[in-house]
Each structure stands twice: as C-alpha cells, then as structure tokens.
C-alpha cells in the first residue's frame, strides 16, 4: 500500500493549527499568502503568518463558499443567509488592517453555495438558485444574470483563459461566453445531473462529475465527449494536474472512498486509462492537485489527508481533524497546504526542506 522508500518521508510538516467554532466549509489562499477560511457557524477568518483575524463572527447561517480574486485584491464569501460579501484586501503588514468590507449583496432566502472569480478580471460569479449572477468589482454592480433554468446550480467554473463560464446542474453543463452574456449558452447534454465541473489548466478540456456515477470529459469545441464509468457512487471531486510531457494533464476524480486518476491515451480513440488509488476509509471530501507538480492531495471523513506522490502512491499521511477533514487548498506556489476539519480544525502545513524532489 505504501510505496517502497516513501514510508515515513516528510513532504510537508505542520506549521500552524487553530480552530473555528464549527465545520470548516471552505479554505482559500490569496496570491500573496493570505489564507481565508469559513465555517458552518458563519465565521470568516483571515490568517497571515500565524495571526488570525475574524472578518465575520459566528452567526445564524453557514458560510459555504469563499474565494480571492485572481489579483488577490478582493475576497468574496457567500452562504445560507443569501448574502454575498466582498472585502477589499489591503496591502498592510498587519493582518488587522488587511481587509475592508466594501459590499454586501442581499439575495433573500436563497443559499449561495458556489462562487468563483474570473481568472483575470475582477468579476465574481455566484450561484443564486437556478441562476448565476456576475458581479463586477470595478463598477461594483451585477452585470448579468445567467438563467441555468433546468435545476438549481450545482457547480460553476470559469475557463482558465477567461473565455467562458461553465454552469452545472440537471441535464448537463451550460457554457456562456464571457464576450456576449446575452448569447445562448452552449449545452453539453447529459442524461443525469452534473454535480461538479472542472476545466483543465490549458482550457482545452472540461470534465463533469455526474449524479449517475459517470464522468464526462469533452475537448471543448468537439462534439464527442468521453464517458467514464464504473464508479461506486456519484462523483464528489474533480481536479486536473499540470500538463504532462505530451501536453495532456491528468484528471483525478473521487467517488465515495476511492480515487481514480485518468491519463489520456496517445490516440483520441483509445480514450483515457484509469489508475485507482485506495487508502481512505471514509468519504473523500476534497481532492486537489499541487499547482506545480503531480502531487495529489486527498482529504476524507477518515481524518486522513493523503499526499499521493506523482498521483500514484501514498507519499505522506497528514492528520489532525478528529471528526474528519472537510476541505483543503494549496497556495499558489504549492509551498503551503491548508485544510479545514469537520470539527472546526484549521491546519496549515508547509513544504519540508527534507522532502524536496516530490512529484
């Protein structure tokens, strides 16, 4: 199970641990090393160099999603009271002076489950029932409302080159062009609901994890998707790696307790081949490729955060969440890793000097 020579190897070591009052729902890094975290109690905190700042205290409603804009100048958070809050991130040294709430968008009784910033300009997309709204930070106004229509929005993802935004839900994925919001979306049809979607870093492929235990992968623009089957349950997470030598990235997906890592065959018609990673003894809650290498991190209900060397074998197992992990995030360089626990744990690990050369 543990690859020869890797057992006991320290790739990452714990740098800091703190806690929020409940289930940590999301963690996110800014490009300059600030960490934000939210909890089911409604807290939003900022972390910098071991200091924690409370941006929102525990309240009545859970905060479920948060993200920094690509330039790190804004932080947005949304949750079950229907509010989307945006803070301006200031370039001060002290964490106490680093954020300034600039707007609160009220959306009545709707839950805000998903939000994401455009990869280059400061436009924020957030789910709003069956719609997605795009809010522009420069003019501080909602510039469009995209009707997904079929069902509630289950996931959304900007194409990394900024050209399109994909919105997932029942019936598949609808892709809107950022050039013309009024244009009809392109529909990637599926027989069930798409519950999670991710673009590859080169913007070439889009993957959809579906409720009927399948994954659909499309080379965007082609009309012939690949469909991967054989999963024991619905697809809970999808993540693309950096491109390999042949320019195609790996696609990792989790379903129940297992992970499948898909590698594209040289010829299109040969499809994708899977390698199955099993070590978890609980549902996988988060799965994310290292931003610079093939190191894959998976965090699960079993209280293990596993680092898979070259997305193949267990490199290191990190612990610290008594009731299981809930979420994780790599910082932009991949030198730090943050994870949130189901009992409110917030843990940061940093790259070990001894662990050089992984991935």
């Amino acid at each position: 199970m543990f690859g020869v020579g890797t057992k006991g190897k320290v790739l990452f070591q714990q740098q800091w641990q703190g806690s929020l009052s409940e289930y940590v729902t999301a963690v996110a890094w800014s490009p300059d090393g600030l960490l934000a975290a939210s909890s089911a109690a409604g807290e939003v905190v900022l972390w910098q160099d071991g200091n924690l700042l409370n941006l929102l205290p525990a309240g009545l409603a859970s905060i479920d999603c948060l993200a920094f804009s690509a330039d790190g100048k804004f932080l947005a958070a949304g949750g079950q009271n229907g509010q989307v809050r945006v803070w301006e991130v200031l370039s001060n040294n002290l964490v106490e002076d680093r954020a300034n709430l600039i707007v609160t968008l009220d959306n009545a009784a709707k839950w805000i489950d998903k939000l994401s910033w455009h990869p280059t300009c400061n436009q924020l997309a957030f789910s709003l029932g069956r719609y997605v709204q795009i809010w522009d930070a420069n003019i501080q106004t909602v510039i469009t409302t995209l009707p997904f229509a079929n069902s509630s929005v289950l996931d959304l993802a900007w194409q990394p080159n900024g050209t399109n935004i994909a919105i997932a839900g029942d019936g598949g994925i609808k892709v809107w062009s950022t050039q013309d919001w009024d244009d009809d979306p392109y529909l990637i049809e599926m027989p069930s609901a798409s519950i999670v979607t991710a673009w590859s870093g080169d913007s070439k492929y889009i993957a959809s994890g579906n409720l009927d235990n399948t994954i659909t992968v499309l080379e965007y623009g082609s009309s012939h998707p690949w469909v991967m089957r054989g999963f024991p349950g619905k697809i809970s997470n999808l993540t693309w790696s950096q491109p390999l030598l042949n320019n195609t990235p790996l696609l990792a997906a989790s379903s129940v307790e297992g992970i499948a890592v898909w590698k594209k065959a040289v010829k299109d018609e040969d499809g994708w081949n899977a390698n199955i990673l099993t070590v978890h003894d609980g549902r996988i809650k988060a799965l994310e490729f290292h931003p610079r290498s093939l190191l894959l991190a998976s965090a699960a209900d079993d209280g293990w955060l596993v680092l898979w060397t070259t997305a193949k074998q267990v490199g290191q197992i990190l612990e610290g969440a008594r009731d299981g992990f809930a979420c994780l995030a790599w910082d932009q360089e991949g030198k730090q890793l943050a994870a949130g626990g189901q009992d409110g744990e917030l843990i940061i690990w940093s790259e070990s000097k001894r662990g050089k050369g992984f991935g």
Partner: protein
Amino acid sequence: MVATTNNTVPVTVLTGYLGAGKTTLLNRILTHEHGKKVAVIVNEFGEVGIDNQLVIDADEEIFEMNNGCICCTVRGDLIRIISNLMKRRHKFDHLVIETTGLADPAPVIQTFFVDEDMKDKIALDAVVTVVDAKHIQQHWDADEAQEQIAFADVILLNKTDLVSPEELADLESKIQGMNKMAKIYRTQNSELSMDALLGVQAFDLDRALEIDPEFLNEDAHEHDETVKSFAIVESGELDGQKLNNWLSNLLQTKGVDIFRMKGILNIAGEDERFVFQGVHMLLDGKPDRPWKKGETRKNELVFIGRNLDEAQLREDFKQCLV
C-alpha cells in the same frame, strides 16, 4: 454538544394536496414542545411565506428547496441541500421534507434508497400524507392524489368536521383499499399526537412488517380503483433462486406500477426471516432475526400499486415455493 450514538437523522416526508392541511401540520410540528429540534425543507411553491414567518417565530430553522417541480432534478437538489445541512448535524434531531401539493413523493423517497451518502446519514422515518376529507372527492382522478395515499405510512384524514359520518366511513374504507399498510387517523385541523407522526420508523427493516393481522386475514374486497393494495400470505419455504428471478423480473417489468412493497419471507435452508421493502424498482432487504421455536414459518407480502394483477402475482409467488 455530545454526538448521538446513532448518527443517522430520521426524515419525515410530508405530502398532501394544496389546502389539505400540510402547512398547519408543519406548523404544529415546529411549535409543539416535543423536545426535538426539527429542520424543515419546504418547497418554494405553496404557502412558504406563512411558513417562514411562523417558523422564524418558533425559533426553528427552515430551509428552502429550490425546486418547484418534482422530477429528476429532485435528487441532485435534495442531496445538495441535505449535505449542506449535515455540516450542522448537531443543530437538529429530525428532518421534515414537505413536497408540493402536486408531487409524486417517489423521487424524494428513492433518493434515500439509492444515494450512498444519504443512505448512511439519513434514515427515512415515514411518509405522512394529509388528505382533505371533503375536497379529495374532486381529486380522485389525479394520479398524484392516489400516489400520495399509496406511498403513505401515516394518513391524516383531515377536516373530518366538513363531511358526514357516512361519507367519512366510505372514504376511510376506500383509502384502506388503496393502502392497507398505512395507519389512518381522523383529524381536524391536522391535530395528531407527535408520537404518531415523528419517530414512526416505518422504513426500519428491523420493525418491517408490523402488518396488521386483520389486514392479512381480510377477504379481498372488490375495488374499482386502479390503485390498490393487497397481501399475499403463504406457508411453506421459498426457493431462493426462483424467488430472485421472479422479483427481479417483476421489478423490471412492473416496477413503475409498484409503489411500495414489503415482506417477510421464509427461504429454504435459512434459519432467519428475510425482510425486504421496495419503492418502485428499488429493493432493500436483509436477513432478520431467526425464526422462533414454535413460530409458524410463513411468507407475508404486501403490495401497493397501480393496475396490479393480483391473481397473477399470487400465482407467480406460489411458483417460487419449494
């Protein structure tokens, strides 16, 4: 807060036509001092405004299911909402899902049968259907009205003050013909003791078949309804292989018309009773306790469905006996 030993949350699915008294019942559940913290998922169609108001007053949490039409979108949305709720598991002891007046409750029930996350976290407690004793007469032709009755474990025959005793007796007998498994309560203003509503454990296989013996002994009535229920009682042992073939074929060909089924079976070579239940084509079964000494080993099955050929099903079942 200390975690409960059994970490699954019981779920009550509340159905009934618009105006039947669902909202009144929901508000009773939310305001009643039963010591349970109840989370509610309501539908955006219907009387949500009033609910929200009352619920906030009652200091309960209310959650909105962003889904008007009950169709295949239900599963994705329900899973999304419940997964979110479960992050605050300690905040509630019981979950109530109110479906729309026009809804077929099957997709909601099926979600708890098929989804691997839901199966572990959620235990279906019961389907509770509120029937308007006066206005149901206008809805008999609607499939939804019949399905809501057919799927129910608990039926509130509500607004009994608006109909004559004779009408009520007729209605109750008609409903019994459609669904003999359900417990029927005659109510006014949806007044019913909480014990009869919450914690019923109607889907718990361990208590599976507390089928009313009277029902099993009852002579078959002639009903003109397309939706009906009936029981099969047979002594003797079943051939496991034959049974398997019959059941899988039955669910494939008639699954759409079988709303619910339950059974205790005596399988040849097994010391334990085999218990099962089904919703449409989904089946959930397991060996139960051993047959007791001196206990008569027999097979009891109950079907509720539409256009079911009772004689054929009885005959086919007999063919499975050793």
